């Protein structure tokens, strides 16, 4: 299970911060890799549904980030947002080239675990969320994944999607509302 990682103080801050305005240095890249690699991989594997493709996308995203770090414009978002924009482009390129319908893999460890009732309840909830997510249209699913794995603000989300911030908020609202409704429907079906 992934742990929520708050934005690190070690990473370059947006231009509001007087600390750093230049491109990413090697140390910042290393910190970014440590803190974001798992999330990028999680986003990619959730979207692409295949481990090898997710690993390719993750590697490609970091390669591109390292290559373009001299051009990083911190006025347009945090390095994390920059990284996820790159990862999204790579993932969409991968999707487009292989024309694969994304599949949602279940955590390998999820099915094998069995213990106390609380854990069983969590596993059941995860299964519900997984099914609800899988039932979402792919565009909405991608938005949810980007939001939750990337932990992007709506502004960064809008920039990554190439749409306005209000439009991003609208789409996110619609996607999350639908996700919760699906979860509720699935819960009701299970109870019934």
């Amino acid at each position, binding site marked *: 299970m992934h742990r929520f990682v708050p934005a690190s103080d070690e990473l370059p801050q947006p231009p509001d911060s007087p600390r750093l305005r230049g491109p990413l240095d090697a140390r910042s890249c290393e910190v970014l890799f440590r803190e974001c690699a798992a999330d990028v991989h*999680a986003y990619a594997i959730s979207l692409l549904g295949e481990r090898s493709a997710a690993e390719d996308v993750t590697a490609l995203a970091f390669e591109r980030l390292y290559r373009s770090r001299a051009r990083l414009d911190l006025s347009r978002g945090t390095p994390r947002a920059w990284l996820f924009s790159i990862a999204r482009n790579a993932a969409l390129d991968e999707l487009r080239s292989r024309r694969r319908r994304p599949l949602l893999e279940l955590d390998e460890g*999820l099915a094998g675990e069995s213990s106390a009732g609380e854990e069983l309840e969590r596993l059941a909830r995860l299964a519900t969320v997984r099914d609800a997510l899988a039932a979402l249209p792919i565009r909405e699913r991608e938005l949810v994944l980007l939001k939750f794995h990337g932990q992007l603000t709506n502004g960064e989300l809008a920039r990554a999607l190439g749409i306005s911030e209000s439009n991003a*908020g609208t789409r996110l609202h619609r996607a999350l509302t639908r996700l919760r409704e699906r979860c509720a429907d699935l819960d009701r079906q299970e109870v019934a």
Partner: protein
Amino acid sequence: MRVISFPGGDSADPQSTWVLELEAALNGESEGPAAESWRELREDVRALAPPMTPAFEQRLAERLAERDARPSRHRRLDRARALVRPRALAAMASVVVAGALVALVVGLGEQRPQHPVPQLASQAPSGAERVNAAPQAHASAGAAGQTSSAATPTEVKANAQGLAPAVSAPAGATGRVQQLAASVGLSASPGNVQNVSDGVARVAAGDEGYVQQSHVQVQQHGPSEANLTLKVPSARLAAVLAAIARLAPVSSESQSLQDITNAYEAAHQRLADARAERRALLRALAAATTEGQIDSLRERLTQARNAITQDQAAVQSVSQRASTAEIEVTVLGNAAGKAAASEGLTLHRGLHDALRVLTVALIAILIAAAALVPVALVIAALAIARRTWRRYQRERALDPA
């Protein structure tokens, strides 16, 4: 303007409120069941993704570390690649601007009249046949000059403002005889009027001319002035004007041209007639048989000789007018001239030159911009179109098959 909302109408956009609440919940800034459920949903979605395998993580970390550990030459290359585009563009723009600047300066330098020699004056012959042979033949102008009995003076005035006089003589016509004249006003300090006048006289003498008339008035307290009338060969007019302009700042300058073809041809015709009459009289004298006839013819021959002499003088006079240009030089000694003659002159010229350079630079920039801006716009449009197309293609990957 202050907007006062209706009571109960203080309702922000529900969606914006929802977005703000979601952000606050995900950032841990709000509490409560709703916020807790959002955080739980996020954790559940994140928990669904299988973790990276340690092997892949290790491999990727090593790959990136290897990339960072590349020789510094490669890193410099990367940095150079990142910088090469803006620098190349800037260099290209600089080259274009510099090229346009040089071309303009050279072009203006070629166009600038550097004491142009009046065509008519420079080609006026020195002998009796002072017929202008300038190549710029204006048939209509020539015809008009021939039919008109009155000479047509053409005057070009220019305020030289401290520069060498910008003499620009009008183009002459083939076969025309023309008389040139010019007047130059010089500014000098009161104590320098005499020196400038002497310099003007020396210039005239050095160019095969002479001072026909001069009047110099120098006062201890008050304005000083000198007036000189120079006669110089028409062919040397431009050179003399340029030399005079170097003596002191030129405050005014004018040049005139008068067509004297009719007078020239009339004098020649009269001379030819007189000679013909003399030849006829000589033939009649040879055939005369009586004393009365001989005496009468001799008297008429004497008259004819006198007429020939007068006509020859007239022809020489007209020729002299064509071959000699008259220059009226006025040297004014005043405070302005003093200032101009001293440092003010340098400052003025410097400012003028600076202004000229700035103007030329501005023109060059405008020309360069006129050439570069459309190209840049096309490139930008292509780049935007390519980017939009790629984004569209990527987004299509999310469309249902």
